[in-house]
């Protein structure tokens, strides 16, 4: 489960950490991705595993459009940039929840049967649910890919450079908006992937994103902003802590452990585990 949190958090880590923009609609991105997966299944009987790339591609476009239509202007605001970012993306979250309620109704939906749903696999005597396992593998692959992408490709370097100094970057001929739009697209695509996997074993409803989003913020901050590896480590920590808290506390308190660990970590290391900013 920790790696799944990690997977949800990677996309956020990219947007949040690397571009220093808080996307308060991150949970709603996840929700949209889950609905997309659900409807692809309901209308075309497409298994979530097959639709995952499609959903990721759709979310890529969605993320880029959101950047170009909203976030671009929020970042440019002359006063209170931080607040404008928080509240414009928060407004977007409310809007998306409303739209989802309008078109999809507040009913809980789930994908009744898929290739992996409800199946378990036994490794050395331990039974693991297959969807979670696949999710974990996808998460590892996504992290590795993103790490490589940020540190080894021109685009990744351009992204990081743009965050550090947009003015200087413009001088060497990099279009800030293009880089950031692609970055947002990529972040959203990763959430799309997470949503497709989540839809296999979790209910889909308009407010589904909210609970996961808070954990995703905590995961990213726990690992430290500006660090992809940090988000990965954060995801694992969060998963472990959750597993341990459910053993010792009633299930309704399971997130208390996660939040508590976050506070402990930042009180000792104010920049998270591996943070650079």
């Amino acid at each position, binding site marked *: 489960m920790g790696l799944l949190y990690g997977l949800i958090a990677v996309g956020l880590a990219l947007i949040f950490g690397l571009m220093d923009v808080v996307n308060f609609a991150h949970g709603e991105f996840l929700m949209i991705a889950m609905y997309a997966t659900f409807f692809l299944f309901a209308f075309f009987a497409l298994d979530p595993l097959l639709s995952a790339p499609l959903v990721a591609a759709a979310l890529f476009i969605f993320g880029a459009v959101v950047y170009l239509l909203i976030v671009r202007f929020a970042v440019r605001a002359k006063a209170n940039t931080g607040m404008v970012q928080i509240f414009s993306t928060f*407004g977007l979250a409310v809007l998306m929840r409303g739209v989802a309620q309008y078109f999809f109704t507040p009913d809980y939906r789930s994908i009744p049967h898929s290739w992996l749903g409800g199946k378990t696999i036994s490794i050395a005597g331990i039974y693991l649910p297959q969807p979670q396992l696949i999710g974990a593998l996808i998460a590892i692959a996504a992290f590795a890919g993103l790490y490589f992408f940020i540190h080894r490709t021109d685009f990744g370097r351009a992204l990081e450079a743009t965050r550090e100094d947009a003015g200087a970057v413009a001088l060497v001929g990099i279009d800030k908006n293009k880089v950031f739009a692609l970055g947002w697209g990529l972040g959203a695509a990763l959430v799309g992937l997470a949503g497709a996997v989540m839809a296999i074993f979790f209910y889909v409803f308009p407010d589904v994103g909210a609970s996961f989003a808070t954990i995703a913020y905590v995961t990213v901050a726990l690992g430290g902003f500006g660090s992809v590896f940090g988000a990965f480590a954060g995801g694992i920590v969060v998963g472990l802590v959750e597993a341990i808290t459910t053993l010792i506390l009633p299930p309704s308190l399971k997130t208390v452990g996660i939040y508590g660990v976050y506070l402990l970590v930042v009180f000792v290391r104010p920049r998270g585990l591996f943070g650079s900013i």
Partner: protein
Amino acid sequence: MDKAFIQRRRRDLVVAAFLTAIAAVVPMFVKDVYVQNIMVLTLMYGALSQSWNILSGYCGQISLGHALYFGLGAYTTAILFTKFGVLPWFGMLSGGVLSAIIAMALGYPCFRLGGHYFVIATIVIAEITLLLFHNWDWAGAALGIDIPVRRDSWVTFQFTRSKLPYFYFALALACVAWFVTWWLEDSKWGYWWRAVKDNPIAAESLGVDVFNSKMGAAAVSAFLVAIGGSFYAQFVSYIDPESVMGFQFSLLMALPAVLGGIGTLWGPLLGAAILIPLTELTRSYIGGSGRGVDLIVYGGLIIAISLARPQGLVSLFSRKPKPAANQVREAVAS
């Protein structure tokens, strides 16, 4: 002292007195209970947002966890009243003091955090408390506390037949929050806070006690918000963890200030006067369908306003200061 500044502050005071007087007579003409209800909520959120603005607007420490203090105020009052028979007025005061103490205790580790780390810490702390209250049987757990109805009087601060007393209390609360802000704006603390917000390192080097000024702002802010929470508990006479400590309260305190103008004297009240009636009206007129149209309108408006007026709606009222270059040119010409 700058003469224009003193004049502006005097004018603010006069305008405030004038607005209060108008607000005080409005209920004599508006008898509709539904509208009165909206007015009470508007004033309450105005007061809450004004208090939030002290820590987050003036001192620049953006908190999205103020629901914690709101809930503490509500719970202290309700628990003291139902379990120990303590009158709400004392409950209100103890809730405020308790919140201020807790705000400082939490501020001690939290104020070392910067930026997003701080914001997330505030959210997380409020969430933890919410979950703890959910599981705390003695305090009603998820079922909450029903405040027993006694007779209507100012002593028990309960009025079942009329909303007017609540209205006047909310008005008084808004006035107090406004006046505290007005008074602090020109005090030593007010200048420290703005210095801390703009550049904490420079402020520290000039001898501002950054840490303690954040603590002061947190205490004042939490105290006032808790009073608001106590009031709310009396007003709705039923509380449960979600309805007084939920994340939406943290947002509803922050939004009016952001909308109206963060870190300004009039911003929070102006923002509340627009946002709260809008929220209530969209909810009751188009939200009844349960299909989320109210959310669409609400979300769309938040995006539009925050993008179009990043400095807040209050900037519409202020005359634009001339650019410095023009002033120099005029000075040279004359």
